[in-house]
């Protein structure tokens, strides 16, 4: 990646982070921790790798994303608004009655959302189904999938982990947002998921582990994943829950927290320096 593009992506991620903090702060409560830990991966996907059309969200041949940790929806909504899938002022309707931007991703309400998610563990299966449909139709585009580390406690994740390599789904590129925290505490204390690299490798995936806030690392990992001929890819992202918001970062209570709007605005001002 050229230095100029790297700088652009870094600047874009800051914008997305501010929009996300602002939309949750405007509402006053939300899943800020797990939304902010996926800002960089969403940015590198939507601004460098994914072929999507904001003017034609249902275009047949497009890259698709299943955000299986559906509670991170607000971060994805910031990206989709910025890309022009819908007006930016929708972001202030988050979770309000009648909104098109519900807490968890809804493909029937939000332009640009490719799969409804929210019940953890289910997105991997949906992504496998979409990848199989693409293969049947001779569609070359990729299916991207983001799961959580706490979500990896779910048995369905491992049913899917078994199925994707069985069907040799090299068109499926998955990420684990490994921010090390779940609702009740640290993942290693609540329900340890380690050794994640070894587990996914044993199931037959091409596994890479990179810094989930580093664009060069993620970009190279995605490029390598795209070259896989037979295996689905799992890119484990070491991330920080609540990344970039001074009131939330690394706090164990940041999964779904109250956010005072003045504090949120202050956090947005500080994003550039944080």
């Amino acid at each position: 990646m050229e230095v100029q593009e790297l700088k652009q992506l870094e600047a874009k991620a800051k914008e997305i982070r501010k929009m996300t903090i602002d939309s949750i702060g405007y509402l006053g409560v939300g899943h800020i921790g797990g939304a902010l830990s996926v800002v960089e991966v969403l940015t590198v996907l939507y601004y460098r790798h994914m072929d999507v059309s904001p003017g034609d969200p249902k275009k047949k041949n497009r890259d698709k994303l299943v955000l299986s940790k559906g509670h991170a929806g607000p971060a994805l909504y910031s990206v989709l608004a910025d890309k022009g899938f819908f007006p930016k002022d929708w972001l202030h309707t988050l979770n309000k009655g009648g909104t098109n931007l519900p807490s968890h991703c809804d493909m029937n309400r939000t332009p640009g959302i490719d799969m409804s998610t929210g019940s953890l563990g289910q997105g991997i299966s949906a992504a496998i189904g979409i990848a199989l449909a693409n293969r049947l139709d001779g569609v070359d585009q990729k299916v991207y999938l983001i799961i959580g580390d706490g979500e990896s406690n779910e048995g369905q994740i491992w049913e899917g982990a078994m199925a994707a390599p069985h069907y040799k789904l090299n068109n499926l590129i998955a990420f684990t947002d490994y921010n090390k925290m779940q609702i009740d505490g640290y993942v290693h204390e609540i329900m340890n998921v380690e050794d994640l690299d070894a587990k996914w490798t044993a199931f037959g995936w091409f596994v890479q582990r990179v810094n989930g806030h580093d664009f060069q690392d993620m970009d190279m990992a995605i490029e390598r994943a795209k070259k896989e001929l037979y295996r689905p890819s799992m890119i484990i992202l070491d991330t920080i829950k609540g990344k970039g918001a001074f009131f939330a970062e690394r706090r164990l209570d940041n999964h779904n927290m109250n956010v005072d709007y003045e504090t949120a605005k202050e956090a947005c001002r500080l994003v550039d320096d944080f």
Partner: protein
Amino acid sequence: MAQLEMRAVYAQTLIELAEKDDRIVLLEADLMKASGTTIFKNKFPERTFNMGVAEANMVGVAAGLSAGGKIPFADTFGCFAARRTYDQFFISANYARLNVKLTGTDPGVSSAYNGGTHMPFEDLGIMRNIPKLVVFEPSDPVSLKKLVQKAAAHQGCTYMRLHRKPVDIIYTEDEPFELGKGKVLRDGNDVTIVAIGVIMVHEALKAAEMLKSENISAAVIDMHTVKPVDSELILQYAQKTGLIVTCENHQIMNGLGSAVAEVLAENCPCRLKRIGVEDEFGEVGTQEYLQERFGMTVGHIADVVKKNLK
């Protein structure tokens, strides 16, 4: 009466649909031999996905295939379809307004030797609580074929109970069917027996014949779709006969009996008796033993009718 094996009819119907529409795909969870769909796989290997013993993943993958524009049929035993994949079917398929056709085989006592763990007496009830879902159970090979065709054409999810075994043919090949529209198999004036599924529709027809010999005129309705239930037909026959007896190979709670009771209570109070399982778990045995055990027999239906006639 001529018989046909229901699962063979199911597989053949899917093949015919798949020949005309390349969006039709099939998913199984290591029960392909039981579902009888191996002939589909042989014909369309690339459109058949065996997901192994992982029903939750199977239903989620079916939802994904639907999101990718396919029309997936997914089969497993009814006990697993309803209990084990409920959240996947609810959220990934139904809440997402996708187009998944879920088939639960071996309804109720037809699970026989697989016993109580495998005997779904609750699947109609569980499924009836999913908004907009179409829930149905064909009673013979002809209605199976016609209703599967309708399900494939329906835009939205469906749940079908499939009795796999050889079954007597009731309908003629040209009989038209609609999901949500019951079939009057026999008219009558004294009582209406509203039944669902292979076992109970056949038992109801025999019961009506038995009652005729005692000068009781019983109408029989094949209420193949429990959701949306055919309220119009229920009310018409409630007014006509004044007594309704429902028959289901299922708990009397939340299934056909409840659906009929809801219609009657709100629109046309009328005497109602529900025949089916009364708050019990299934158990092992032959189908004949289990029909006796849970009161799913001609004799029991006739007795209930006679006890409740004025």
